[in-house]
């Protein structure tokens, strides 16, 4: 595949060169051989966009004018040319290209020869960075309706070992596409699998659970010719369908319940997104809406819970807590963390919905697909205002409506008030507005921490009535005049201002560090609760009491998250204007030392959140006077009425039920290092193209846009000046969900096919670009894509179409190489790419675990809600340790379906991991499938299997007291078939000798349990 490079030949003056063949040859030589090397290897740093070291190779004049080191090319003298010296490797390493592999010997020879022969550069030729512009590729072409071919294949009928070929009956479109290929290749369809096989296949495929013995029997014995179709409909309407297929989508979007990276802290509000995916699939939600909600549900479907919860898509991937919470955006490391964060959002959007890999365009233009570096950064601009954070919303539509109505009324009253105010202001003169501005500024001073040192933090308690103290040794006995306690600020659990400030406490002073003798009470707040003071400093005057030690004793701790603490930003002890605590020593009953944020030393470091009120009180008095002068009693009455109305609506708002939270991609209203864009009303960060992906190497400022890769579906957004950040996301969402975006429909059709068959029609569902695999049945893929796009867009419709085909229903057990048609299949297509039989499926981790619980009779089928944890958390304060080996496998809370498991990024659940569950650190389009000794050990010895084997045995004993019947039931539960005569006797003997739990453990380890024919 030869790629066309975008060689700009603007104003190439052919005229003169035309006459001279030699020159023409040289020009062609430059264009064909030299320019591509410069474009690929040099121009990203020495080109039109930037000229490192003052050197650009974009035009002849620029080349010959050289750089800061002088001339780089001496025509006719390659050996003296600095350029050649720079690119010639020594010991495998060359000075240029910087930080990259050196040019090949052939490339160097080409450049040498070109310089030697005079370094001819045709007049007017301007080079730009290499870029693929060719959009003529199967997946990028428009998608049009397609009719299934008029062919009939042959199907094998196996009866008592005899194979006969019969024409394939029926008109199923999928079979017609597949049969067409069969005819080309001399293949034929296998027979339909028997019902016992089909029922197990269909259950695992559609709902991820094994059929019960009754369900198997009912289907096998159903005389209705449409029994199969009935079963398909039953399963697709089961709520378990959504649980099964949501897991596939969660793989793709790399959903997890912790942040990953350093500390790997929990994300307690991630799960509403997971439930949204389950619910959406169960509803058969149109795919275009599913896309739109996940990128911009708040904008395109306002007032719906789905529209908010879906935004968990943007935040699904990992988040670098330290890189955001401890490093401000102004620092290089902070910039890198935020760049990587947006990169993850961009990749997630494009790879999940459009099956293209795009990350490599962050350093240079995509080498294989027509995606420029600029387009990549334009996608960054789409997400430039959002961060990953908890977002509040109302699940109940009625509450959401009331919230919207009140908010609207609030806005209306505010507008009236503003109108009135401007009238008053015009009367009162400039000073009033000035005062208002100053007061507002003082009051709006960012709450939160100005620095990373938060303060002192006690150990965490389960109850609030634990007494804690912290004290300052002032070094010598003094008589302080006032003590200030400055409350701390921490966004943890959404608390913010007043974090950890005790509800009840006392302050004492003494010369006894133990506070046993000579103790003087300075402040007593022990009789009733002090409401959270925010960050307003608490002042305690002292009259004529001396002492060396000052102690704060909390008698009722502050709530944190189902637990309680004492925390404080600053402890000030003023003697005159001098804060003696600064020179003191802190001691306390206990302390969490978590630098830089928390530590005893931070209590006296003069670092504390800013005070909200301050001088505004004085200004307020002056302002009130001005106001009085400028208003008549009528106006004042009008003003007061509006204030009353406003207060009313505000209290109505406050009376609404507490909003819920989902971890989502959203404008973040934070403080300190992790401020987000809340303070600037969600104004997007300016996004520049970054040369070589380096955050301090800024290129041009870019505008938000989607990709320019389809003819007839432009990536440009027509956004008005001053548009909101949400409009950017909405524009991307609608570009993706459009009927005119062929990749959207091909990508999801291919993914669905892959989950049904084990391999996609195109084998690389996350890369349908030039580096990906081409589809085996491109017309079938397009047919399915169009069916989905132009129909009801429900995945269920697609499932029904696929699983009712003969292609899907074939037997997998055709492997007698002596049988001629099988031999033909093996010879032509050993990997079954052309679908002449069904693929046997190895069950995924979730299906194995759910099946173990189901057959043991322990599966809790409760849907939705917070994730269950199958580990014990140790050291939750800093970097939680997720200890799976300490979990009790009999804890019933952990017996829910695997899709509800709390997914830890840094430490995958060992049992699930051994069975190749998806790694939530990366987007998983296709899971690995391994068979290893460690996997065998897990299935033999893991706590779940060992414990559930006993539960399984208990269940069998409850159903029958006859060993043969117990064994038979175990097989029917776990394998969907009865035990054979041949198997029965040895198993009876084995079970009699070693007990039913051992027998059950044996069954759960069988290949037949782990594979589906």
């Amino acid at each position, binding site marked *: 595949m030869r790629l066309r490079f975008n060689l700009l030949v603007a104003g190439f003056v052919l005229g003169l060169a035309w006459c001279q063949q030699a020159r023409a040859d040289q020009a062609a030589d430059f264009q064909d051989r030299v320019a591509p090397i410069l474009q690929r290897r040099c121009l990203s740093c020495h080109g039109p966009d930037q000229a490192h070291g003052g050197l650009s190779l974009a035009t002849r004049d620029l080349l010959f004018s050289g750089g800061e080191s002088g001339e780089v090319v001496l025509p006719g003298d390659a050996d003296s040319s600095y350029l050649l010296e720079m690119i010639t490797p020594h010991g495998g390493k060359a000075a240029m290209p910087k930080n990259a592999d050196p040019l090949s010997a052939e490339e160097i020879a080409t450049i040498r020869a070109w310089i030697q022969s005079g370094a001819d550069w045709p007049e007017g030729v301007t080079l730009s960075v290499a870029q693929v512009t060719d959009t003529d590729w199967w997946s990028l072409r428009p998608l049009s309706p397609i009719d299934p071919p008029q062919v009939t294949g042959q199907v094998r009928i196996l009866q008592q070992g005899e194979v006969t070929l019969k024409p394939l009956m029926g008109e199923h479109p999928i079979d017609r596409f597949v049969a067409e290929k069969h005819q080309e290749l001399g293949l034929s369809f296998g027979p339909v699998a028997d019902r016992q096989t089909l029922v197990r296949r269909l259950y695992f495929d559609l709902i991820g659970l094994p059929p019960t013995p009754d369900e198997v029997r009912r289907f096998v014995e159903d005389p209705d010719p449409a029994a199969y179709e009935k079963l398909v409909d039953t399963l697709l309407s089961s709520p378990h369908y959504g649980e099964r297929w949501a897991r596939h989508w969660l793989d793709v979007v790399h959903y997890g319940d912790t942040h990953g990276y*350093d500390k790997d802290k929990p994300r307690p509000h991630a799960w509403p997104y997971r439930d949204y995916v389950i619910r959406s699939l169960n509803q058969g939600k149109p795919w275009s809406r599913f896309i739109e909600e996940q990128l911009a549900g708040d904008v395109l479907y306002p007032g719906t819970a789905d529209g908010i919860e879906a935004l968990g898509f943007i935040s699904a991937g990992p988040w670098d807590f330290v890189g955001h919470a401890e490093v401000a955006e102004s620092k290089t490391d902070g910039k890198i963390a935020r760049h990587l964060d947006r990169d993850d959002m961009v990749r997630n959007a494009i790879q999940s919905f459009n099956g293209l890999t795009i990350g490599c365009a962050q350093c240079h233009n995509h080498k294989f697909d027509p995606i420029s570096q600029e387009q990549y950064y334009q996608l960054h601009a789409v997400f430039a205002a959002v961060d990953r954070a908890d977002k509040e919303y109302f699940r109940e539509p009625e509450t959401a409506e009331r919230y919207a109505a009140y908010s609207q009324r609030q806005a209306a009253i505010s507008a009236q008030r503003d109108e009135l105010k401007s009238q008053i202001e015009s009367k009162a003169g400039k000073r009033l507005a000035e005062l208002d501005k100053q007061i507002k500024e003082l009051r709006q001073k960012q709450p939160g921490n100005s620095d990373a040192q938060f303060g002192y933090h006690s150990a965490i308690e389960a109850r609030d009535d634990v007494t804690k103290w912290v004290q300052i040794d002032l070094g010598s006995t003094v008589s302080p005049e006032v003590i200030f306690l400055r409350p701390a600020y921490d966004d943890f659990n959404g608390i913010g201002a007043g974090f950890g400030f005790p509800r009840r406490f006392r302050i004492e002073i003494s010369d006894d560090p133990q506070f046993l003798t000579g103790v003087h009470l300075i402040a007593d707040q022990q009789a009733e609760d002090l409401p959270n003071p925010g960050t307003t400093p608490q002042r305690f005057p002292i009259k004529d009491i001396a002492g060396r030690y000052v102690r704060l004793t909390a008698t009722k701790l502050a709530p944190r998250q189902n637990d309680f603490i004492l925390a404080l930003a600053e402890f000030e002890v003023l003697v005159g204007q001098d804060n003696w605590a600064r020179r003191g020593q802190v001691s306390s009953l206990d302390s969490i030392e*978590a630098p830089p944020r928390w530590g005893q030393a931070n209590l006296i470091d003069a670092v504390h959140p800013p005070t909200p009120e301050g001088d505004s009180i004085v200004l307020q008095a002056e302002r009130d006077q001005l106001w009085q002068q400028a208003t008549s009693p009528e106006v004042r009455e009008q003003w007061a009425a509006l204030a009353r109305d406003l207060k009313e609506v505000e209290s109505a708002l406050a009376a609404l039920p507490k909003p819920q939270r989902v971890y989502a991609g959203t404008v973040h209203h934070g403080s300190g290092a992790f401020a987000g864009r809340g303070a600037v009303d969600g104004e997007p960060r300016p996004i520049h193209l970054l040369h070589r992906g380096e955050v301090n190497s800024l290129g041009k400022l870019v505008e938000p846009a989607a990709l320019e890769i389809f003819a007839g579906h432009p990536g440009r957004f027509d956004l008005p000046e001053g548009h909101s950040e949400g409009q950017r996301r909405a524009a991307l969402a609608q570009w993706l969900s459009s009927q005119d975006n062929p990749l959207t429909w091909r990508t999801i059709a291919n993914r669905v096919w892959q989950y049904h068959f084990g391999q996609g029609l195109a084998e690389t569902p996350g890369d349908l670009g030039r580096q990906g695999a081409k589809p085996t049945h491109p017309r079938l893929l397009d047919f399915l894509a169009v069916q989905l796009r132009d129909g009801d867009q429900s995945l269920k419709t697609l499932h029904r179409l696929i699983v009712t085909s003969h292609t899907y229903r074939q037997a997998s057990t055709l492997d007698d190489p002596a049988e001629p048609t099988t031999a033909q299949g*093996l010879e032509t297509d050993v990997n079954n790419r052309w679908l002449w039989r069904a693929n046997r499926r*190895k069950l995924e981790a979730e299906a194995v675990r759910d099946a173990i619980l189901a057959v043991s009779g322990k599966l809790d089928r409760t849907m939705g809600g917070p994730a269950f944890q199958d580990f014990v958390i140790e050291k939750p304060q800093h970097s939680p340790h997720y200890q799976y080996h300490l979990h009790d496998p009999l804890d019933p809370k952990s017996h829910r379906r695997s899709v509800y498991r709390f997914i830890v990024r*840094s*430490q995958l659940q060992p049992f699930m991991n051994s069975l190749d569950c998806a790694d939530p650190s990366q987007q998983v389009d296709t899971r690995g499938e391994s068979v290893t000794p460690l996997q065998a050990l897990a299935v033999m010895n893991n706590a779940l299997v*060992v414990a559930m084997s006993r539960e399984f045995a208990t269940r069998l004993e409850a159903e029958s007291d006859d060993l043969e019947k117990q064994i038979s039931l175990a097989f029917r539960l776990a394998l969907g078939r009865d035990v054979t005569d041949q198997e029965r006797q040895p198993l009876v003997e084995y079970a009699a000798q070693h007990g039913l739990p051992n027998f059950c453990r044996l069954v759960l380890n069988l290949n037949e349990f782990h594979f589906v024919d």
Partner: protein
Amino acid sequence: MPQNSPFHRPSAPRRHTTRREFLAQSGGGLGAIALAAMLGEETAANTPHKSHFAPKAKRVVQLFMAGGASHLDLWDYKPELVKRNGQESDFGEPVEAFQNGLGPWKEPTWKFRPYGESGKPLSEVVSPLGGCVDDIAFIHNMVGKTGVHSQGTLLQTTGFNLPGFPGMGSWVSYGLGSENKDLPTFVVLPDHRGFASNGAKNWDAAFLASDHTGTVIFPDRANPINDLMPHASGDYITQESEAETQAMLAQLNQRHAADRMLDGRLESRIRSYELAARMQLAAPEALEITNEPKYIRDLYGIAPDGTEWPSEINPREEADAFGRKCLIARRLLERDVRFVQIWSGNDNGFPRRNWDSHEDVERDHGPLAQGMAQGAAGLIQDLKQRGMLEDTIILWTTEFGRMPSTQGGKGRDHNPYTFTNWLCGGGIRGGMTHGESDELGYKPLDRANPTQVYDIHATILHLLGLDHTRLTVRHNGIDRRLTDVHGHVLHDILA
């Protein structure tokens, strides 16, 4: 491993007929193509692969100091810092430090003195390694990308500063395969107190097959390898039942597979149970150090089993903990494990038990460094006396170094701008230094030519006989490699 365990079987379980043998015996009717297809499937990930050229080394030990170990207090002697100690620091340019902790210049926390024929000065806190300096190549101009622990750690372990990429051990396992199927190819010995930043992401196989994931061993746990033995609740499992279960399982699986002849996975799974049973014998044996002679245990600084330790961190206990991991590493290497990763220090917690000495270098680096030096020196000497050092590479690394200025008087802030790695053994030229830092240990002396993790990785792969530009895997449309698009073999440190 208690001797009365039901899994102390006298010999490995009987071997079952393999699918290949089964087919060979069944003879007639078997198409040659089908056979070829099946044999293809047997080229499993675990068979040794071909190297690109003749290797100098066969095995790697990576010693990882979590939290950011100070080059200035251990390896990289800066007399200029002694001279300027306590003077206000001036870097001559704006510096972004992680916690803005840029106090006055701070001299090395410990005295340095020269060792060996090369006269390489080392800090007294790592003096046990003094006897090894002539085998070690120091690299003092390592640079990272950021001063964030998670990113720095991933960069050193996987070559990328974001999660989702295979660890170096995984690449080596992928490139060279296993020489001992009874043990994992890539073993991780975490700090006994817990995982470092990013946890298991540092040894993940990511997009490589999952059997290239580092297998975590906690030698002190009842199950040193996850699920090596049945969970404690399995009291119904006995030695006899286990043997019978295995036999019955194999029998039923064989019968199931006989009707599904062309599916190689079924036979693989049958064999995986045999291998698992062999691992149940091999792993405890490899991890058992009780019978190692006293002089060997002393060499590694290992205290008598059952020693009671004070609650405060102390050098003897650190030496015992690190030394045990080093000795186990040697035993694993002897048994042809390819890659062992040993961690010192866990993630950030309280009290601090890693190298992230913002507050107090002496308090935190002191015991960790003494313990590490004792164990590492023991490992080098022990491998040497067994003739194994010549084909075993030892790499000492960390996510970044620390600043030449003090933070809060006793500590130092992160320094990703320069730090130290050292390599030893397996084709490395000892007694030399490649790449200096500047006179204050702030940045590389030659800022235009630093050493990066890609170069270290490229060099190690080179010594193992692998060309880092050719060890690739196509993932999401990109031919991924350990060294991304970077990396140069450091030829001058090769013997």
